[in-house]
């Protein structure tokens, strides 16, 4: 019986659910660090007065600048200081730092620090930053705020658009969002009194990468810095890039010779960690008479904030949009310009899905609008356009391995019973009042990519591979050390299932060590829906090697041929016989009776493996059902259905958990969450009264079904699925909101679909009376 494919309970849970987790904030024994942050969006620093450290102190110690670069001609290179130097570029930018015995004392010290800043005009939103006379975010390095500008077109695009039967034009806008991990960021650094080694505990996703870049910045050997990610309370991409604060903590601990801790509070996290997804897409799409999408042209602008993030850079959102916009569809002709626009706002990091929630929103709104224009059913237009020949090579050269784009959609729509829904909808339209709507979304999710994909980006450093080190100790238990850095995904449990199948042992006999640079092989951490594919693949390969070692040893002990040895149920047996030996006994022999090993065998049982695949595409169909009140603009979720194909499922329960969490974040993106700045660059959403993550009351039950197309692009057959929920949900919800109000002629292509935006769309559809709500309310039908 296989362990892979079973929903065994997560070994991670008892610790976390019993409150026994060890997060950065639990470590204690440290002085409290408080960052002094810029109160203005743009300005020149005249001076910093008070008991604080500034960039001058870092400079005096020779601390370097962060250089997050892409080697491409359209990319503006910058050197970013760890604290603001001369100029501040967003509200919340760290300018100085104080150290107090307690958090309250650090607050008191912070109040004593006076920042002398001469405010300058700020460029905040996309339009403001793109204006010809826009204030420049980096005037010394660039004559405009365009920091990266990718462009490509297939030959024949223009002719294809001219020849199209119908052209659909569409503008999609995504509000700025924050990943909002439950645990904000934080770090704790302590330097040994003798020897000078520093240990940094930080709430991060990629400990080895963080060790490298901090050591580069501080000019220290990597052997002298240990980086540990203890329990991490959510990350979602926000904890992938280097936090300037973490590097400052290491510097402070070494300079002061004492333990220091920085525990980011919620306001700080919302103001100054990382944001994402402030994007605008303009699409021009040509369909033929058969409703096939023949040509797709896009202009994408992403507000990338004031600084790039290391090492992903601020190309991550616009260039992902460029590369992946055709999504699950098959336009023969594709052209795109995609730009990253700097502004005087918080910098951007990847957030679960990165650009794909907006890409998918754009494509799926396009499909629904085109369907209406062409008189085709929304299901039918997708049926005609989804990929079905594999491998499919996209116009940007991406190889899509086999998926079930059409099958997933057919299963989802048959499950929701569209016919019955339409009958209910007709009744509701006749009755007035809140209106039901349904929205479909199909998408592809590029996952599990290694060095080849990252190398194509021409980054300053090229992430990619994952390594594992596996050993079996004399008791027959397996220790697996991984370079990935799980933080709540259940990876330890899933990897133990892979190991158990290969070695014929039980998952409870596998221990996974992760997230500590002293105890794990170098790796790139957990992000981009990669860990199951990469660390899982490396684990699979290492386990095969270890199984071969056990097989050879068993063959020696049992005097049989190695090829005849079967590992199962904790024993090595000769196939077709009852002759066998316990694996634990083999483990003893391998360490304690090495005279019995085959000639030339290395004592012990251990195997290393690396894995570095090119990538694979998951696919899914989401269907959302909503109820929209045209009078209040309120939207409530009624139902959510997911059909997911992520290849081989290692642990279906864990897969479902990933989907549920992602969908909840996607619904929040669609309806609730938005970071808002005023035009001067003051951030207005710095508490959870203003930035609105959903509660359980806003999220419906999420019905999940799986298809399982084993990938030929990965050794386990598994595909990644960590981001899919977030990618698909916004488009499904926005399509449902539009469907609910379609009879009023409403078109709403901006998320989040707040009550105010829904009302504005209803008013616009009703004839654009702009004389104020008083008139409007009198024009409205009496409220039912």
């Amino acid at each position, binding site marked *: 019986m296989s362990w892979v494919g079973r929903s065994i309970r997560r070994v991670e849970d008892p610790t976390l659910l019993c409150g026994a987790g*060890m997060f950065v*904030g639990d470590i204690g*024994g440290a002085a409290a660090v408080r960052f002094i942050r810029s109160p203005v969006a743009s300005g020149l620093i005249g001076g910093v007065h008070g008991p604080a450290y500034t960039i001058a102190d870092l400079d005096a110690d020779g601390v370097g600048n962060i250089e997050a670069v892409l080697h491409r001609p359209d990319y503006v290179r910058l050197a970013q200081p760890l604290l603001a130097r001369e100029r501040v570029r967003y509200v919340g930018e760290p300018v100085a730092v104080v150290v107090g015995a307690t958090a309250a004392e650090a607050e008191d010290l912070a109040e004593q620090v006076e920042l002398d800043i001469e405010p300058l005009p700020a460029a905040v939103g996309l339009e403001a930053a793109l204006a010809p006379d826009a204030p420049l975010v980096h005037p010394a390095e660039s004559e405009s705020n365009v920091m990266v500008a990718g462009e490509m077109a297939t030959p024949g695009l223009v002719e294809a658009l001219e020849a199209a039967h119908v052209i659909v034009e569409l503008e999609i806008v995504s509000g700025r969002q924050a990943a909002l991990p439950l645990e904000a960021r934080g770090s704790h650094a302590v330097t040994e009194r003798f020897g000078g080694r520093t240990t940094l505990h930080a709430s991060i996703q990629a400990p080895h990468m963080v060790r490298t870049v901090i050591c580069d910045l501080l000019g220290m050997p990597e052997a002298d810095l240990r980086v540990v990610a203890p329990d991490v309370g959510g990350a979602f991409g926000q904890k992938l890039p280097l936090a300037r604060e973490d590097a400052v903590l290491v510097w402070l601990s070494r300079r002061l010779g004492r333990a220091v801790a920085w525990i980011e509070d919620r306001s700080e996290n919302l103001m100054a960690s990382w944001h994402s997804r402030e994007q605008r897409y303009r699409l021009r799409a040509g369909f033929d008479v058969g409703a096939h999408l023949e040509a797709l042209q896009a202009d994408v602008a992403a507000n990338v904030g004031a600084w790039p993030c290391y090492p992903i850079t601020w190309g991550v959102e616009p260039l992902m949009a460029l590369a992946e916009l055709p999504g699950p569809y098959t336009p023969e002709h594709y052209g795109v310009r995609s730009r990253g626009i700097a502004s005087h706002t918080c910098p951007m990091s990847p957030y679960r899905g990165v650009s794909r929630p907006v890409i998918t929103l754009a494509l799926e709104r396009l499909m629904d609008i085109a369907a209406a224009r062409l008189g085709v059913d929304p299901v039918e237009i997708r049926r005609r356009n989804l990929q079905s020949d594999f491998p499919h090579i996209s116009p940007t050269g991406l190889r899509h391995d086999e998926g079930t784009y059409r099958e997933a959609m057919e299963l989802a729509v048959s499950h929701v019973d569209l016919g019955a829904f339409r009958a209910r909808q007709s009744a509701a339209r006749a009755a007035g009042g809140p209106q039901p709507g349904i929205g479909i979304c199909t998408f592809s999710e590029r996952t599990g990519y290694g060095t080849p994909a990252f190398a194509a980006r021409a980054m300053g450093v090229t992430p990619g591979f994952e390594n594992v080190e596996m050993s079996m100790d004399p008791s027959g238990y397996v220790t697996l050390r991984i370079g990935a850095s799980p933080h709540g995904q259940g990876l330890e449990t899933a990897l133990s299932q892979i190991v158990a199948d290969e070695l014929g042992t039980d998952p409870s006999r596998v221990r996974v060590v992760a997230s500590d640079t002293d105890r794990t092989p170098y790796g790139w951490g957990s992000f981009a829906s990669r860990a199951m594919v990469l660390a899982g693949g490396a684990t699979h390969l290492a386990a095969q090697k270890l199984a071969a070692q056990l097989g050879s040893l068993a063959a020696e002990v049992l005097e049989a041929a190695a090829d005849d040895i079967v590992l199962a149920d904790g024993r090595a047996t000769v196939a077709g016989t009852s002759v066998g030996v316990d694996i634990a006994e083999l483990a003893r022999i391998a360490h304690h009776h090495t005279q019995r090993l085959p000639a030339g065998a290395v004592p012990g049982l251990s195997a290393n493996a690396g894995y570095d695949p090119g990538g694979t595409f998951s696919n899914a169909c989401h269907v959302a059902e909503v109820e929209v009140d045209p009078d209040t603009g309120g939207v409530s979720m009624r139902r959510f259905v997911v059909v997911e194909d992520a290849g081989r499922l290692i642990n279906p329960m864990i897969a479902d958990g990933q989907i549920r969490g992602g969908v909840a974040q996607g619904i929040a993106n669609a309806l609730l969450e938005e970071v808002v700045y005023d035009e001067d660059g003051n951030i207005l959403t710095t508490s959870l009264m203003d930035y*609105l993550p959903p*509660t359980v*009351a806003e999220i419906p039950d999420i019905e999940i079904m799986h298809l399982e197309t084993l990938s030929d692009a990965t050794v386990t057959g598994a595909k990644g699925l960590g981001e899919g929920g977030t990618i698909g949900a916004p488009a499904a919800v926005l399509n449902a909101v539009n469907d609910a109000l379609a009879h009023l002629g409403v078109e709403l292509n901006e998320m989040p679909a707040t009550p105010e935006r829904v009302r504005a769309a209803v008013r616009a559809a009703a004839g654009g009376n702009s004389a104020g709500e008083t008139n409007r309310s009198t024009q409205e039908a009496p409220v039912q």
Partner: protein
Amino acid sequence: MLDDEAGPQRRPAVVAVKPARFAYTAPDTVEDALDVLDRFGDEAKVLSGGQSLVPMMNFRLARPEVIVDIGHLGGLDGMSVSNGALTVGARTIHARLEAPAVTTPDGRSEPLGGVLGSLLPAVARFVGHLPIRVRGTFGGSIAHADPAAEWCILARTLDAEMVALRRGGERAIAAEDFFETVFTTSLAPEELLAAVRLPVLGDDWRTGFCEFSRRAGDFAVVAAMTAVRLELATGVIAEARIGVGGVAGVPVRLGDAEATLMGETPSADLHAAAAESAAGEVDPVGDLHGSLGRARVARARAPGAGASG
């Protein structure tokens, strides 16, 4: 993840509270509390459930010199009925209003019946979330005077009386005079809100409460409460009260809409006319969650919408 061989042990964490320095006192008796308030006046701030004050102190938006924690005082919680009024002790937690019970003169506890017995639970479920409702207090919410708070709207709509104690004295303040502007009441610095008196509504009253908020448990974007007394013999509306929160610095009564209803027989057309009138009476200030609209005020209108008593 495996425990670390040489890693950190759980030690007292960095003390994460961030308020500015303050003095703290937790008097045992109401008299002691009033003495402290009398002595420190506006340097003092009363701490009840702490659900609004503590976050504001951590943000350092509130910087009281002296915190007077009334959490240990006896006698300020619970509900009782006398002289046609329901008295709600200031320290009564919100959760108690979800299943309101009154103490009888002979010391027994019995469920609160009647119109208020239905209305209070219907409103209570909109107050925050359960962890807030088991800590936060009715009087704390009234004294905090958030214009969108459910209890403030209720107090204004039903013309509640706030019972304020001071050293050697007591006065009753009408709701109309109590709420002055956002987070500001007519309580004097040396006064302690001890109780709120709500009129017991007879069986000829009907009530409704409707709230529009972005998420369950949020402060209302807008909320409205109605209470009407029907002349049972004729079926006409003899008394009408309409209160709205979230549209101004204090919860407001909509006199024109109330007048529209008076002396009329309830009907869909009458409700629509009252809603129309209500929409004309408010001029909501926009905030982050919308430059709202009268449409929403109109939506939360007289009997039929939302909870009913």
